[in-house]
């Protein structure tokens, strides 16, 4: 008999999102056989930027996401630096990297413990943590209690990562310090010392708690190295420029198709499809540099407020695993646990780099250079957010913003089907996920959370008729 279960909302992610999965037996194993992933919030940020002064973009676009605002500030000022052909001072570059690095590290810690861990362990037996989805718990009570202790410690470390960002950035969430031409805060020795103390604490937590916990999870749940594999198409814009010319980055730019060799990336080959999004069909399959955001709701067959970005027509997975793979730092595999492990190792790599950047800051050297933004022009800024590749595309006319397009990491990962009916990366990764109890599909949550989607997520599970 067919059963129909609605699980909505799925929690412990950011934003509003829905996942419908169809569950059926294949070769005697009950598993996901179809999936639809849908974004349930439309705000139209791109439209409300039109007509504004270009220097407003960093303030406005940070408010796209309170979890990873700094990468939006970074992308916005990189875009304006590109349009105005500005080379920022080394100290300005280091300031930008340090604040964004702190945002990455605390976001990864937040993800593993607050957003993801409760798919594997039971939290404290009270609201808001207690759930009846207590399925497939493999850690013993003692270990679970240790992990809950780490969960609580993680909240503190997340807060300290935000405080570290505020040392140079003024405040978090939403820093006022990113400007085209560099950075507003002029570092002092006192600030450098304080940031270093925070970095040391974060590194200690990552090395001695976060990474061991991630490795323990991957070991105890090692079947999840074969679950949630998806396409194996990985894309990274790269980020954390190591020099002011942008020639070297901590994470390099590139793509990997079907988990094979790295290839260079050409931004011109990105298009956004809208066949299954609530957008007008006339705006489909175009590059974001000339992209438009025109809604159409309701619309036949559409099921998401997300567009479907594609690279050379292919759906691409983005995030820490993509970055680490493209950069040659982690090439073990593509799966739920590979995503978790790559994220933990990446936190260490970034935190260590923060110490290095901090040592390069020269007190007294400039952080900012005056720049002249043209009245007319086009440009884009490609960087990475904790959850993956982030791009801003800008068109200037009459000194004002005439067009602005943003492609967020979650757009890549959680996109609906495209014009060629190819599933989005998360949809594809969900296929084949074994599910013990369709009424409580915790396994689906594990796959969904491994991508660290920046959306509220809702899962509708139904069994095939």
């Amino acid at each position, binding site marked *: 008999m067919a059963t129909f279960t609605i699980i909505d909302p799925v929690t412990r992610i950011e934003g509003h999102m829905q996942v419908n999965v169809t569950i059926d037996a294949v070769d005697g194993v009950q598993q996901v056989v179809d999936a639809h992933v849908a974004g349930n919030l439309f705000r139209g940020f791109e439209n409300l930027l039109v007509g504004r002064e270009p220097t407003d973009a960093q303030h406005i676009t940070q408010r796209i996401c309170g979890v990873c605002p700094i990468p939006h500030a970074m992308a916005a000022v990189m875009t304006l630096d590109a349009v105005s052909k500005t080379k920022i001072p080394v100290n300005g570059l280091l300031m930008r990297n340090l604040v964004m690095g702190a945002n990455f590290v605390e976001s990864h810690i937040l993800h593993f413990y607050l957003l993801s861990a409760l798919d594997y362990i039971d939290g404290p037996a009270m609201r808001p943590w207690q759930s009846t989805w207590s399925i497939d718990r493999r850690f013993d009570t003692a270990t679970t209690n240790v992990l809950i202790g780490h969960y609580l410690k993680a909240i503190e470390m997340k807060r300290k990562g935000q405080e570290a960002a505020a040392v140079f950035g003024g405040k978090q969430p939403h820093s006022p*310090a990113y400007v085209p031409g*560099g950075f507003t805060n002029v570092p002092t020795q006192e600030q450098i010392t304080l940031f270093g103390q925070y970095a040391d604490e974060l590194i200690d937590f990552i090395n001695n708690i976060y990474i061991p916990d991630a490795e323990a999870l991957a070991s105890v749940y090692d079947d999840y190295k074969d679950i949630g594999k998806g396409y194996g198409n990985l894309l990274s814009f790269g980020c954390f420029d190591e020099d002011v010319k942008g020639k070297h980055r901590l994470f390099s730019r590139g793509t990997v198709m079907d988990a094979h060799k790295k290839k260079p990336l050409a931004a011109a080959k990105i298009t956004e499809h809208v066949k299954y999004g609530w957008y007008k069909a006339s705006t489909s399959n175009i590059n974001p540099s000339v992209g438009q955001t025109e809604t159409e709701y309701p619309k036949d067959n559409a099921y998401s407020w997300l567009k479907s970005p594609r690279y050379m027509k292919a759906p691409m997975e983005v995030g820490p695993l993509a970055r680490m793979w493209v950069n040659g730092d982690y090439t073990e595999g593509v799966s739920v646990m590979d995503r978790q492990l790559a994220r933990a190792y990446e936190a260490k790599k970034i935190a260590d780099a923060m110490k290095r950047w901090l040592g390069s800051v020269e007190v007294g050297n400039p952080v900012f250079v005056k720049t002249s933004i043209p*009245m007319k022009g086009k440009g884009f800024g490609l960087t990475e957010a904790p959850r993956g590749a982030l791009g801003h595309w800008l068109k200037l006319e009459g000194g004002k913003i005439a067009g602005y397009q943003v492609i967020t990491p979650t757009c890549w990962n959680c996109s609906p089907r495209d014009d060629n009916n190819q599933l989005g990366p998360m949809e594809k990764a969900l296929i084949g996920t074994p599910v013990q109890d369709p009424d409580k599909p915790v396994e689906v949550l594990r796959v969904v959370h491994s991508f660290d989607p920046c959306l509220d997520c809702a899962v509708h599970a139904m069994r095939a008729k």
Partner: protein
Amino acid sequence: MEVTRRDFLKYCGMSAGALGLSMFDLGLLNNALAADGAPSVIWLQGSSCNGCSISLLNRISDTAPKTVDDLLLNSIDLIFHPNVMGPAGSEAVEAIRATKSYILVLEGGVPTVYDGMACKVWSENGVDVSYAEAIRSLAPGAMKVICVGQCACFGGIPASGNNPTQIVSASSYTGLETINIAGCPAHPDWIVGTIAQLLIGNSVPLDEFGRPTSIFGETVHSNCPRLGKEKATTFAETGKCMMDLGCRGPFTYAPCPYMKWNNGVSWCINANGPCIGCTDPSYPTAEAFYSPLGLTSFYGKKNRK
């Protein structure tokens, strides 16, 4: 995870002045927290960036209570919060429906385009429920409605410009007198302090925009350490007044200069970022953040091609 009530009081004591709590109030708070049955809180998110929830997680200093979980464990009964709660799906929604006495916290504005369907919060009995509809069903029964952050209070950035999704502030959408904790994001101490006032049973005096006067009673300008200092003509000039870079301090009511942000680490002006007026109902205005004078002196128009 013990002694959290004492720790909470210690925390309240530390910031009592800023929160408008007297020592008498702190005694009452102690009694309120000692009573059985912590008050229930339902926290909904609409058209927002979740930044106010992230900000709330930052709210504690090194002195205990160290983390927000202490508050959750002993001071309030958090029925629903999309980012931190364990349960998902119908289990999460049923918990809301089973709650009869609660404080409703709203984070995010209310998109009204497409009958509210630009923001769906959950489905119930197989039907999609919009944020707007969730507010309609929950606000009338709430002991009090607290709007957290600029989007809920006034619409905020998603409601600016041509307001693509026809956002109405959550505050006005309820049709009730709400407590408006302004800010983009709201400061964690402002949120916790206001909840503390409600736990005591105090009335919270509000200004004409629904903001607690104890928090939003003075302008940033009037307490600014750079007041009367030499004027900055471009960015990254430490210690100078940023009036010519578009600073909104003179008409922005907020305690940032003395309360600061992120455990007292810094605040916008300390990082040479002009105040962008993020607690004012007009935020964000149509004018450039660095106007009126900032643009001509910084991105000089005569230099622009």
